[in-house]
Protein backbone atom coordinates (compact mmCIF):
# COMPACT_ATOMS: atom_id res chain seq x y z
CA UNK A 1 0.00 0.00 0.00
CA UNK A 2 2.80 2.39 0.99
CA UNK A 3 4.61 1.54 -2.23
CA UNK A 4 1.51 2.32 -4.25
CA UNK A 5 1.03 5.73 -2.63
CA UNK A 6 4.75 6.46 -2.74
CA UNK A 7 4.88 5.82 -6.49
CA UNK A 8 1.42 7.21 -7.18
CA UNK A 9 0.98 8.01 -10.86
CA UNK A 10 0.73 11.76 -11.25
CA UNK A 11 -2.45 11.32 -13.31
CA UNK A 12 -4.27 10.34 -10.06
CA UNK A 13 -3.11 13.64 -8.57
CA UNK A 14 -4.35 15.46 -11.67
CA UNK A 15 -7.77 13.78 -11.36
CA UNK A 16 -8.01 14.70 -7.66
CA UNK A 17 -7.18 18.34 -8.43
CA UNK A 18 -9.61 18.44 -11.36
CA UNK A 19 -12.43 17.09 -9.15
CA UNK A 20 -11.61 19.41 -6.25
CA UNK A 21 -11.84 22.38 -8.62
CA UNK A 22 -14.75 21.26 -10.79
CA UNK A 23 -17.19 19.90 -8.18
CA UNK A 24 -17.43 23.08 -6.04
CA UNK A 25 -17.93 25.09 -9.26
CA UNK A 26 -20.62 22.71 -10.56
CA UNK A 27 -22.48 22.60 -7.22
CA UNK A 28 -21.87 26.33 -6.64
CA UNK A 29 -20.22 25.96 -3.24
CA UNK A 30 -19.78 29.45 -1.81
CA UNK A 31 -18.03 30.14 1.47
CA UNK A 32 -18.02 33.39 3.46
CA UNK A 33 -14.84 35.39 2.83
CA UNK A 34 -12.89 36.63 5.85
CA UNK A 35 -12.10 40.37 5.74
CA UNK A 36 -8.71 41.14 4.26
CA UNK A 37 -7.19 44.29 5.86
CA UNK A 38 -5.09 45.10 2.76
CA UNK A 39 -8.23 45.02 0.63
CA UNK A 40 -10.32 46.96 3.13
CA UNK A 41 -7.99 50.00 3.06
CA UNK A 42 -8.55 50.39 -0.68
CA UNK A 43 -12.29 49.77 -0.37
CA UNK A 44 -12.60 52.37 2.42
CA UNK A 45 -10.56 54.89 0.46
CA UNK A 46 -12.73 54.61 -2.68
CA UNK A 47 -15.89 54.52 -0.55
CA UNK A 48 -14.98 57.81 1.11
CA UNK A 49 -13.89 59.71 -2.01
CA UNK A 50 -16.22 62.52 -3.02
CA UNK A 51 -18.39 61.69 -6.08
CA UNK A 52 -16.77 62.62 -9.38
CA UNK A 53 -13.25 61.71 -8.23
CA UNK A 54 -10.99 60.29 -10.89
CA UNK A 55 -9.73 56.73 -10.52
CA UNK A 56 -7.03 55.50 -12.88
CA UNK A 57 -6.81 51.76 -13.51
CA UNK A 58 -3.86 50.26 -15.34
CA UNK A 59 -4.78 46.95 -16.97
CA UNK A 60 -1.36 45.32 -16.90
CA UNK A 61 -2.38 41.76 -17.63
CA UNK A 62 -3.47 39.45 -20.40
CA UNK A 63 -5.85 36.46 -20.62
CA UNK A 64 -3.46 34.10 -18.82
CA UNK A 65 -4.07 36.04 -15.58
CA UNK A 66 -7.72 36.78 -16.30
CA UNK A 67 -9.20 34.37 -13.69
CA UNK A 68 -7.45 36.20 -10.86
CA UNK A 69 -7.25 39.81 -12.04
CA UNK A 70 -10.39 40.30 -14.11
CA UNK A 71 -12.79 39.83 -11.13
CA UNK A 72 -10.80 42.56 -9.34
CA UNK A 73 -11.29 44.92 -12.28
CA UNK A 74 -15.01 44.18 -12.44
CA UNK A 75 -15.52 44.66 -8.67
CA UNK A 76 -13.51 47.91 -8.74
CA UNK A 77 -15.53 49.25 -11.68
CA UNK A 78 -18.80 48.36 -9.91
CA UNK A 79 -17.64 50.26 -6.84
CA UNK A 80 -16.39 53.26 -8.82
CA UNK A 81 -19.56 53.67 -10.92
CA UNK A 82 -21.80 53.09 -7.90
CA UNK A 83 -20.04 55.95 -6.12
CA UNK A 84 -20.27 58.09 -9.31
CA UNK A 85 -16.50 58.26 -9.78
CA UNK A 86 -14.83 58.64 -13.16
CA UNK A 87 -12.58 55.86 -14.41
CA UNK A 88 -9.62 56.20 -16.77
CA UNK A 89 -7.99 53.03 -17.99
CA UNK A 90 -4.73 52.43 -19.81
CA UNK A 91 -2.29 49.54 -20.10
CA UNK A 92 1.36 48.58 -20.02
CA UNK A 93 0.46 45.17 -21.50
CA UNK A 94 -0.51 44.92 -25.19
CA UNK A 95 -3.61 42.86 -24.33
CA UNK A 96 -4.58 45.21 -21.49
CA UNK A 97 -6.95 47.46 -23.51
CA UNK A 98 -8.93 44.40 -24.66
CA UNK A 99 -9.23 43.25 -21.05
CA UNK A 100 -10.38 46.76 -20.09
CA UNK A 101 -12.99 46.80 -22.87
CA UNK A 102 -14.37 43.49 -21.67
CA UNK A 103 -14.51 44.63 -18.02
CA UNK A 104 -16.22 47.92 -18.96
CA UNK A 105 -18.74 46.09 -21.17
CA UNK A 106 -19.62 43.71 -18.31
CA UNK A 107 -20.11 46.50 -15.75
CA UNK A 108 -21.54 49.38 -17.78
CA UNK A 109 -24.70 47.42 -18.63
CA UNK A 110 -25.63 47.64 -14.92
CA UNK A 111 -25.24 51.45 -14.99
CA UNK A 112 -27.27 52.85 -17.92
CA UNK A 113 -26.44 56.44 -16.94
CA UNK A 114 -22.70 55.87 -17.39
CA UNK A 115 -21.31 57.18 -20.70
CA UNK A 116 -18.08 56.53 -22.56
CA UNK A 117 -15.90 59.62 -22.71
CA UNK A 118 -17.79 61.32 -19.89
CA UNK A 119 -17.65 58.80 -17.04
CA UNK A 120 -15.00 56.40 -18.29
CA UNK A 121 -12.43 56.07 -21.02
CA UNK A 122 -10.11 53.39 -22.34
CA UNK A 123 -6.92 55.13 -23.42
CA UNK A 124 -5.16 52.06 -24.75
CA UNK A 125 -1.67 50.60 -24.60
CA UNK A 126 1.57 52.56 -24.37
CA UNK A 127 4.67 50.75 -25.51
CA UNK A 128 8.03 51.07 -23.79
CA UNK A 129 10.78 49.18 -22.00
CA UNK A 130 9.94 46.20 -19.78
CA UNK A 131 10.51 48.05 -16.51
CA UNK A 132 7.56 50.34 -17.27
CA UNK A 133 9.33 53.29 -15.63
CA UNK A 134 9.48 55.38 -18.80
CA UNK A 135 5.85 54.82 -19.60
CA UNK A 136 4.70 55.77 -16.09
CA UNK A 137 7.00 58.82 -16.15
CA UNK A 138 5.20 60.02 -19.30
CA UNK A 139 1.77 59.32 -17.71
CA UNK A 140 2.84 61.42 -14.71
CA UNK A 141 3.96 64.39 -16.81
CA UNK A 142 1.39 64.55 -19.63
CA UNK A 143 -0.96 61.66 -20.32
CA UNK A 144 -2.20 63.18 -23.61
CA UNK A 145 1.33 62.87 -25.00
CA UNK A 146 1.20 59.15 -24.31
CA UNK A 147 -2.35 58.77 -25.62
CA UNK A 148 -3.17 61.35 -28.29
CA UNK A 149 -5.96 58.99 -29.38
CA UNK A 150 -8.00 56.59 -27.28
CA UNK A 151 -8.74 52.92 -27.95
CA UNK A 152 -11.55 53.93 -30.33
CA UNK A 153 -8.97 55.93 -32.35
CA UNK A 154 -10.60 59.27 -31.54
CA UNK A 155 -8.73 62.34 -30.31
CA UNK A 156 -8.42 61.92 -26.53
CA UNK A 157 -8.42 65.62 -25.69
CA UNK A 158 -11.96 66.09 -27.05
CA UNK A 159 -13.61 63.84 -24.43
CA UNK A 160 -15.21 65.66 -21.47
CA UNK A 161 -13.57 63.27 -18.98
CA UNK A 162 -10.14 64.49 -20.06
CA UNK A 163 -10.85 68.14 -19.31
CA UNK A 164 -9.83 67.69 -15.69
CA UNK A 165 -7.22 65.05 -16.27
CA UNK A 166 -3.81 65.97 -17.62
CA UNK A 167 -1.61 63.51 -15.78
CA UNK A 168 -1.72 60.78 -13.14
CA UNK A 169 -1.27 63.56 -10.57
CA UNK A 170 -4.96 64.42 -11.12
CA UNK A 171 -6.08 60.92 -10.10
CA UNK A 172 -7.31 60.23 -6.57
CA UNK A 173 -5.71 56.81 -6.82
CA UNK A 174 -3.90 54.79 -9.47
CA UNK A 175 -4.65 51.06 -9.32
CA UNK A 176 -2.34 48.73 -11.21
CA UNK A 177 -3.84 45.33 -11.91
CA UNK A 178 -0.61 43.62 -12.70
CA UNK A 179 0.46 40.14 -13.79
CA UNK A 180 4.18 40.94 -13.62
CA UNK A 181 6.52 43.44 -15.24
CA UNK A 182 5.80 46.11 -16.34
CA UNK A 183 3.34 46.87 -13.57
CA UNK A 184 3.21 47.70 -9.88
CA UNK A 185 6.96 48.37 -9.26
CA UNK A 186 6.94 51.07 -11.97
CA UNK A 187 3.93 52.83 -10.44
CA UNK A 188 5.46 52.62 -6.95
CA UNK A 189 8.88 53.86 -8.07
CA UNK A 190 7.68 56.65 -10.32
CA UNK A 191 4.13 57.69 -9.46
CA UNK A 192 4.30 57.20 -5.69
CA UNK A 193 7.97 57.78 -4.82
CA UNK A 194 8.51 60.74 -7.13
CA UNK A 195 5.10 62.41 -7.36
CA UNK A 196 3.38 61.24 -4.16
CA UNK A 197 0.42 59.78 -6.08
CA UNK A 198 -1.70 57.21 -4.20
CA UNK A 199 -1.02 53.81 -5.70
CA UNK A 200 -2.84 50.54 -5.05
CA UNK A 201 -2.28 47.14 -6.61
CA UNK A 202 -4.14 44.03 -7.65
CA UNK A 203 -1.71 41.20 -8.29
CA UNK A 204 -1.70 37.45 -8.86
CA UNK A 205 -1.42 35.24 -5.76
CA UNK A 206 1.99 33.98 -6.81
CA UNK A 207 3.45 37.51 -6.88
CA UNK A 208 1.53 38.94 -3.90
CA UNK A 209 4.19 38.14 -1.21
CA UNK A 210 6.62 40.47 -2.99
CA UNK A 211 4.26 43.43 -2.61
CA UNK A 212 3.59 43.14 1.13
CA UNK A 213 6.85 45.06 1.62
CA UNK A 214 5.43 47.95 -0.43
CA UNK A 215 2.11 47.81 1.42
CA UNK A 216 3.69 47.74 4.88
CA UNK A 217 5.93 50.72 4.01
CA UNK A 218 2.87 52.75 2.87
CA UNK A 219 3.98 52.88 -0.77
CA UNK A 220 0.89 50.91 -1.69
CA UNK A 221 -2.31 52.10 -0.07
CA UNK A 222 -4.16 48.87 -0.85
CA UNK A 223 -3.26 45.39 -2.02
CA UNK A 224 -5.52 42.80 -3.63
CA UNK A 225 -3.67 39.50 -3.74
CA UNK A 226 -4.92 36.78 -6.08
CA UNK A 227 -8.41 35.36 -6.25
CA UNK A 228 -8.75 35.78 -2.46
CA UNK A 229 -8.16 39.54 -2.75
CA UNK A 230 -10.69 39.76 -5.58
CA UNK A 231 -13.25 37.76 -3.59
CA UNK A 232 -12.70 39.95 -0.55
CA UNK A 233 -13.32 43.09 -2.65
CA UNK A 234 -16.42 41.48 -4.16
CA UNK A 235 -17.78 40.75 -0.69
CA UNK A 236 -17.13 44.37 0.40
CA UNK A 237 -18.83 45.75 -2.72
CA UNK A 238 -21.55 43.06 -2.47
CA UNK A 239 -21.11 41.86 -6.04
CA UNK A 240 -21.60 38.16 -6.72
CA UNK A 241 -18.69 37.74 -9.08
CA UNK A 242 -16.46 34.98 -10.33
CA UNK A 243 -13.95 35.39 -7.50
CA UNK A 244 -16.41 34.52 -4.73
CA UNK A 245 -17.63 31.57 -6.81
CA UNK A 246 -14.03 30.47 -7.38
CA UNK A 247 -13.02 30.59 -3.71
CA UNK A 248 -14.94 27.37 -3.02
CA UNK A 249 -12.94 25.62 -5.72
CA UNK A 250 -9.68 27.14 -4.49
CA UNK A 251 -10.47 26.10 -0.90
CA UNK A 252 -10.98 22.46 -1.84
CA UNK A 253 -7.94 22.44 -4.14
CA UNK A 254 -5.82 23.78 -1.26
CA UNK A 255 -7.23 21.10 1.05
CA UNK A 256 -6.39 18.36 -1.45
CA UNK A 257 -2.83 19.67 -1.88
CA UNK A 258 -2.38 19.90 1.92
CA UNK A 259 -3.65 16.33 2.34
CA UNK A 260 -1.29 15.10 -0.40
CA UNK A 261 1.65 16.84 1.30
CA UNK A 262 0.69 15.36 4.70
CA UNK A 263 0.41 11.87 3.18
CA UNK A 264 3.71 12.11 1.33
CA UNK A 265 5.48 13.40 4.45
CA UNK A 266 3.88 10.67 6.57
CA UNK A 267 5.27 8.02 4.23
CA UNK A 268 8.63 9.79 4.20
CA UNK A 269 8.79 9.68 8.01
CA UNK A 270 7.74 6.00 8.15
CA UNK A 271 10.42 5.10 5.60
CA UNK A 272 13.01 7.15 7.44
CA UNK A 273 12.17 5.47 10.73
CA UNK A 274 12.42 2.00 9.25
CA UNK A 275 15.71 3.10 7.62
CA UNK A 276 14.73 2.26 4.10
CA UNK A 277 16.19 5.09 2.09
CA UNK A 278 13.83 4.81 -0.89
CA UNK A 279 13.38 8.55 -1.28
CA UNK A 280 16.14 10.21 -3.13
Amino acid at each position, binding site marked *: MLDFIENLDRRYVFVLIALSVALPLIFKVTLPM*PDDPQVKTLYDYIENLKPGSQIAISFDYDPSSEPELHPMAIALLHHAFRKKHKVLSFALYPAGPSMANDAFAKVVKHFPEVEYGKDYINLGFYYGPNTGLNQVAVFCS*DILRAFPKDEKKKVTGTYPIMSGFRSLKDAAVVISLSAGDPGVPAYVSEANAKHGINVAAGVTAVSAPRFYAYYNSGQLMGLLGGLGGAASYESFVKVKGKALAGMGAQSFAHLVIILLIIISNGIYLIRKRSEEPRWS
Partner: protein
Amino acid sequence: MKREIPLLITFFSCLVLILDFVIKNEVLARLAAAINDYVSILATFALVLGLASLFGVHFNRIYKKRENWGFSVVLVLGFAFSLLAYCLYGVEKEYEVPIPLDRYEVLSKAGEAQVREETVHYLLVDGREIRVGQEIFELDAIGPEHKKKKVFYYQVHSNYWFDTFIFGNVFTPLGATMFSLLAFFMASAAFRAFRAKSIPATLLLVSAFFVMLGRVPIGAFVGQWLEFILLPIATLIFPEAWISPSNQWFSEFAGFIMNVPNTAGQRAIMIGAALGMVAASLRIWIGLEKEHLGRD
Protein backbone atom coordinates in the same frame (compact mmCIF):
# COMPACT_ATOMS: atom_id res chain seq x y z
CA MET B 1 34.95 59.29 -30.97
CA LYS B 2 33.01 56.11 -31.66
CA ARG B 3 33.04 55.40 -27.94
CA GLU B 4 33.30 58.88 -26.46
CA ILE B 5 30.07 60.25 -27.98
CA PRO B 6 27.85 57.37 -26.77
CA LEU B 7 29.51 57.62 -23.35
CA LEU B 8 28.78 61.36 -23.23
CA ILE B 9 25.15 60.79 -24.28
CA THR B 10 24.82 58.13 -21.56
CA PHE B 11 26.37 60.41 -18.94
CA PHE B 12 24.15 63.43 -19.71
CA SER B 13 20.95 61.38 -20.09
CA CYS B 14 21.54 59.70 -16.72
CA LEU B 15 22.45 63.03 -15.12
CA VAL B 16 19.23 64.66 -16.32
CA LEU B 17 17.08 61.74 -15.12
CA ILE B 18 18.74 61.62 -11.69
CA LEU B 19 18.54 65.40 -11.20
CA ASP B 20 14.91 65.35 -12.32
CA PHE B 21 14.16 62.78 -9.62
CA VAL B 22 15.61 64.94 -6.82
CA ILE B 23 15.12 68.54 -8.05
CA LYS B 24 11.79 70.09 -9.03
CA ASN B 25 12.62 72.14 -12.10
CA GLU B 26 10.54 72.76 -15.24
CA VAL B 27 13.49 72.58 -17.69
CA LEU B 28 14.76 69.34 -16.16
CA ALA B 29 11.24 67.89 -16.19
CA ARG B 30 10.87 68.66 -19.92
CA LEU B 31 14.28 67.21 -20.72
CA ALA B 32 13.49 64.08 -18.71
CA ALA B 33 10.13 63.75 -20.49
CA ALA B 34 11.88 64.01 -23.87
CA ILE B 35 14.40 61.34 -22.85
CA ASN B 36 11.53 59.08 -21.76
CA ASP B 37 9.91 59.56 -25.16
CA TYR B 38 13.16 58.65 -26.91
CA VAL B 39 13.47 55.51 -24.78
CA SER B 40 9.97 54.40 -25.83
CA ILE B 41 10.82 55.05 -29.50
CA LEU B 42 14.10 53.12 -29.20
CA ALA B 43 12.29 50.26 -27.47
CA THR B 44 9.93 50.11 -30.46
CA PHE B 45 12.94 49.67 -32.76
CA ALA B 46 14.13 46.89 -30.46
CA LEU B 47 10.72 45.25 -30.82
CA VAL B 48 11.03 45.30 -34.61
CA LEU B 49 14.53 43.82 -34.37
CA GLY B 50 13.21 41.15 -32.01
CA LEU B 51 10.45 40.23 -34.44
CA ALA B 52 12.92 40.07 -37.33
CA SER B 53 15.17 37.82 -35.27
CA LEU B 54 12.21 35.59 -34.28
CA PHE B 55 11.21 35.23 -37.91
CA GLY B 56 14.80 34.54 -38.95
CA VAL B 57 15.10 31.70 -36.44
CA HIS B 58 11.78 30.10 -37.38
CA PHE B 59 12.17 30.46 -41.16
CA ASN B 60 15.57 28.84 -40.82
CA ARG B 61 14.05 25.99 -38.82
CA ILE B 62 11.33 25.45 -41.43
CA TYR B 63 13.79 25.70 -44.32
CA LYS B 64 16.15 23.13 -42.79
CA LYS B 65 13.24 21.01 -41.51
CA ARG B 66 14.72 20.79 -38.04
CA GLU B 67 13.04 18.91 -35.19
CA ASN B 68 9.48 20.19 -34.47
CA TRP B 69 9.56 22.50 -37.51
CA GLY B 70 5.78 22.15 -37.75
CA PHE B 71 5.41 24.35 -34.64
CA SER B 72 7.43 27.04 -36.39
CA VAL B 73 4.97 26.93 -39.29
CA VAL B 74 2.09 27.44 -36.82
CA LEU B 75 3.96 30.36 -35.25
CA VAL B 76 4.70 32.08 -38.56
CA LEU B 77 1.18 31.56 -39.91
CA GLY B 78 -0.44 32.66 -36.65
CA PHE B 79 1.69 35.76 -36.53
CA ALA B 80 1.03 36.62 -40.18
CA PHE B 81 -2.72 36.12 -39.76
CA SER B 82 -2.88 38.26 -36.60
CA LEU B 83 -0.78 40.99 -38.17
CA LEU B 84 -2.96 41.03 -41.27
CA ALA B 85 -6.19 41.14 -39.24
CA TYR B 86 -4.78 43.97 -37.13
CA CYS B 87 -3.47 45.97 -40.10
CA LEU B 88 -6.76 45.66 -41.97
CA TYR B 89 -9.14 46.43 -39.13
CA GLY B 90 -7.24 47.36 -35.96
CA VAL B 91 -7.68 45.91 -32.52
CA GLU B 92 -10.88 46.77 -30.63
CA LYS B 93 -11.78 49.39 -33.20
CA GLU B 94 -15.48 49.90 -33.75
CA TYR B 95 -16.89 50.10 -37.25
CA GLU B 96 -20.01 51.96 -38.17
CA VAL B 97 -22.02 49.90 -40.62
CA PRO B 98 -25.00 51.56 -42.37
CA ILE B 99 -28.25 49.71 -41.79
CA PRO B 100 -31.59 50.02 -43.65
CA LEU B 101 -34.56 51.81 -42.04
CA ASP B 102 -36.60 48.67 -41.33
CA ARG B 103 -33.59 47.05 -39.64
CA TYR B 104 -33.03 50.23 -37.63
CA GLU B 105 -36.61 50.16 -36.35
CA VAL B 106 -36.35 46.48 -35.42
CA LEU B 107 -33.06 46.99 -33.61
CA SER B 108 -34.32 50.11 -31.84
CA LYS B 109 -37.50 48.38 -30.68
CA ALA B 110 -35.45 45.46 -29.42
CA GLY B 111 -33.37 47.93 -27.42
CA GLU B 112 -30.25 46.76 -29.24
CA ALA B 113 -27.23 48.74 -28.07
CA GLN B 114 -25.02 50.80 -30.35
CA VAL B 115 -27.69 51.57 -32.92
CA ARG B 116 -27.90 55.21 -33.81
CA GLU B 117 -29.38 57.71 -36.22
CA GLU B 118 -27.29 60.42 -37.79
CA THR B 119 -28.33 63.44 -39.80
CA VAL B 120 -25.95 64.43 -42.54
CA HIS B 121 -26.01 67.93 -44.02
CA TYR B 122 -25.48 68.71 -47.69
CA LEU B 123 -25.22 71.89 -49.69
CA LEU B 124 -26.50 71.79 -53.23
CA VAL B 125 -23.96 73.53 -55.43
CA ASP B 126 -24.77 73.45 -59.17
CA GLY B 127 -26.95 70.39 -58.58
CA ARG B 128 -24.14 68.53 -56.79
CA GLU B 129 -24.32 67.48 -53.12
CA ILE B 130 -21.39 68.57 -50.95
CA ARG B 131 -21.25 67.17 -47.43
CA VAL B 132 -20.70 69.91 -44.82
CA GLY B 133 -20.68 70.29 -41.05
CA GLN B 134 -23.69 71.52 -39.09
CA GLU B 135 -22.09 74.92 -38.45
CA ILE B 136 -21.80 75.65 -42.17
CA PHE B 137 -25.25 74.24 -42.88
CA GLU B 138 -26.84 76.59 -40.36
CA LEU B 139 -25.26 79.77 -41.74
CA ASP B 140 -28.01 82.33 -42.45
CA ALA B 141 -26.39 83.34 -45.70
CA ILE B 142 -27.18 79.98 -47.25
CA GLY B 143 -30.68 79.92 -48.62
CA PRO B 144 -33.05 76.97 -47.97
CA GLU B 145 -33.02 76.03 -51.67
CA HIS B 146 -29.33 75.09 -51.32
CA LYS B 147 -29.77 72.97 -48.22
CA LYS B 148 -30.48 69.28 -48.01
CA LYS B 149 -30.64 66.85 -45.08
CA LYS B 150 -30.32 63.12 -45.20
CA VAL B 151 -30.77 60.62 -42.40
CA PHE B 152 -28.42 57.69 -42.02
CA TYR B 153 -28.71 54.76 -39.66
CA TYR B 154 -25.70 52.99 -38.24
CA GLN B 155 -24.84 50.05 -36.09
CA VAL B 156 -21.44 49.78 -34.48
CA HIS B 157 -19.60 46.52 -35.03
CA SER B 158 -16.30 45.36 -33.65
CA ASN B 159 -13.95 43.56 -35.94
CA TYR B 160 -14.92 39.89 -35.82
CA TRP B 161 -11.64 38.37 -36.93
CA PHE B 162 -9.35 40.15 -34.54
CA ASP B 163 -11.63 40.92 -31.62
CA THR B 164 -13.78 37.81 -31.43
CA PHE B 165 -11.88 35.11 -33.26
CA ILE B 166 -8.22 35.77 -32.48
CA PHE B 167 -8.52 37.46 -29.08
CA GLY B 168 -11.71 35.96 -27.68
CA ASN B 169 -11.62 32.44 -29.10
CA VAL B 170 -7.92 31.68 -29.46
CA PHE B 171 -5.72 33.92 -27.32
CA THR B 172 -7.94 34.02 -24.20
CA PRO B 173 -8.59 30.26 -23.86
CA LEU B 174 -4.97 29.38 -24.67
CA GLY B 175 -3.65 31.84 -22.08
CA ALA B 176 -6.10 30.63 -19.42
CA THR B 177 -5.23 26.99 -20.20
CA MET B 178 -1.49 27.60 -19.85
CA PHE B 179 -1.95 29.27 -16.47
CA SER B 180 -4.44 26.74 -15.10
CA LEU B 181 -2.13 23.83 -15.99
CA LEU B 182 0.16 25.17 -13.27
CA ALA B 183 -2.29 24.01 -10.58
CA PHE B 184 -1.94 20.39 -11.71
CA PHE B 185 1.84 20.44 -11.96
CA MET B 186 2.21 22.30 -8.67
CA ALA B 187 0.07 19.71 -6.89
CA SER B 188 2.03 16.84 -8.43
CA ALA B 189 5.38 18.50 -7.60
CA ALA B 190 4.25 19.26 -4.02
CA PHE B 191 3.28 15.61 -3.52
CA ARG B 192 6.65 14.36 -4.78
CA ALA B 193 9.13 16.94 -3.58
CA PHE B 194 7.73 18.90 -0.63
CA ARG B 195 9.36 16.96 2.23
CA ALA B 196 10.44 17.88 5.75
CA LYS B 197 14.02 16.75 5.08
CA SER B 198 15.74 19.55 7.00
CA ILE B 199 14.87 22.34 9.44
CA PRO B 200 14.52 25.03 6.70
CA ALA B 201 12.38 22.64 4.62
CA THR B 202 10.19 21.94 7.68
CA LEU B 203 9.78 25.67 8.34
CA LEU B 204 8.77 26.18 4.71
CA LEU B 205 6.32 23.30 4.95
CA VAL B 206 4.71 24.61 8.14
CA SER B 207 4.48 28.16 6.72
CA ALA B 208 2.93 26.83 3.51
CA PHE B 209 0.39 24.84 5.55
CA PHE B 210 -0.76 27.92 7.47
CA VAL B 211 -0.73 30.28 4.48
CA MET B 212 -2.61 27.85 2.22
CA LEU B 213 -5.32 27.34 4.84
CA GLY B 214 -5.34 30.92 6.06
CA ARG B 215 -5.83 32.48 2.64
CA VAL B 216 -9.00 30.54 1.79
CA PRO B 217 -12.40 30.64 3.52
CA ILE B 218 -12.34 26.93 4.34
CA GLY B 219 -9.50 27.75 6.75
CA ALA B 220 -12.11 29.17 9.14
CA PHE B 221 -14.04 25.87 9.09
CA VAL B 222 -10.88 23.82 9.65
CA GLY B 223 -9.96 26.24 12.46
CA GLN B 224 -13.36 25.77 14.06
CA TRP B 225 -13.08 22.00 13.79
CA LEU B 226 -9.58 21.94 15.31
CA GLU B 227 -10.75 24.30 18.02
CA PHE B 228 -13.58 21.91 18.85
CA ILE B 229 -11.01 19.14 19.44
CA LEU B 230 -8.07 21.09 20.81
CA LEU B 231 -9.72 23.66 23.08
CA PRO B 232 -10.98 21.14 25.70
CA ILE B 233 -7.58 19.40 25.69
CA ALA B 234 -5.76 22.74 26.07
CA THR B 235 -8.11 23.74 28.90
CA LEU B 236 -7.40 20.43 30.66
CA ILE B 237 -3.64 20.87 30.34
CA PHE B 238 -3.56 24.63 31.14
CA PRO B 239 -6.67 25.21 33.31
CA GLU B 240 -5.42 28.62 34.47
CA ALA B 241 -4.46 29.88 31.01
CA TRP B 242 -6.65 32.34 29.15
CA ILE B 243 -7.47 30.79 25.80
CA SER B 244 -9.30 32.98 23.35
CA PRO B 245 -11.53 31.03 20.96
CA SER B 246 -11.38 32.43 17.41
CA ASN B 247 -12.10 30.54 14.20
CA GLN B 248 -9.91 33.03 12.30
CA TRP B 249 -6.61 31.90 13.77
CA PHE B 250 -5.41 30.32 10.52
CA SER B 251 -6.16 33.56 8.73
CA GLU B 252 -4.50 35.64 11.44
CA PHE B 253 -1.41 33.46 11.55
CA ALA B 254 -1.17 33.50 7.73
CA GLY B 255 -1.40 37.31 7.95
CA PHE B 256 1.44 37.33 10.48
CA ILE B 257 3.61 35.15 8.20
CA MET B 258 2.93 37.40 5.20
CA ASN B 259 3.36 40.67 7.07
CA VAL B 260 6.37 39.91 9.24
CA PRO B 261 8.77 37.15 8.07
CA ASN B 262 7.74 37.45 4.42
CA THR B 263 8.04 41.25 4.37
CA ALA B 264 11.43 41.08 6.10
CA GLY B 265 12.72 38.56 3.55
CA GLN B 266 11.28 40.45 0.58
CA ARG B 267 12.79 43.73 1.81
CA ALA B 268 16.21 42.10 2.17
CA ILE B 269 16.01 40.73 -1.38
CA MET B 270 14.70 43.99 -2.86
CA ILE B 271 17.19 46.23 -1.07
CA GLY B 272 20.06 43.89 -2.00
CA ALA B 273 18.96 43.83 -5.65
CA ALA B 274 18.47 47.62 -5.67
CA LEU B 275 21.97 48.21 -4.28
CA GLY B 276 23.40 45.92 -6.95
CA MET B 277 21.42 47.82 -9.59
CA VAL B 278 22.70 51.17 -8.25
CA ALA B 279 26.29 49.90 -8.42
CA ALA B 280 25.84 48.58 -11.97
CA SER B 281 24.10 51.78 -13.10
CA LEU B 282 26.81 53.91 -11.55
CA ARG B 283 29.47 51.99 -13.49
CA ILE B 284 27.56 52.54 -16.74
CA TRP B 285 26.95 56.21 -15.91
CA ILE B 286 30.59 57.11 -15.30
CA GLY B 287 31.79 54.97 -18.19
CA LEU B 288 33.49 52.13 -16.31
CA GLU B 289 31.11 49.63 -17.88
CA LYS B 290 31.30 49.69 -21.69
CA GLU B 291 29.87 46.31 -22.65
CA HIS B 292 26.68 47.92 -24.01
CA LEU B 293 28.75 49.76 -26.63
CA GLY B 294 29.93 46.56 -28.28
CA ARG B 295 33.43 45.21 -28.68
CA ASP B 296 34.72 47.13 -31.73
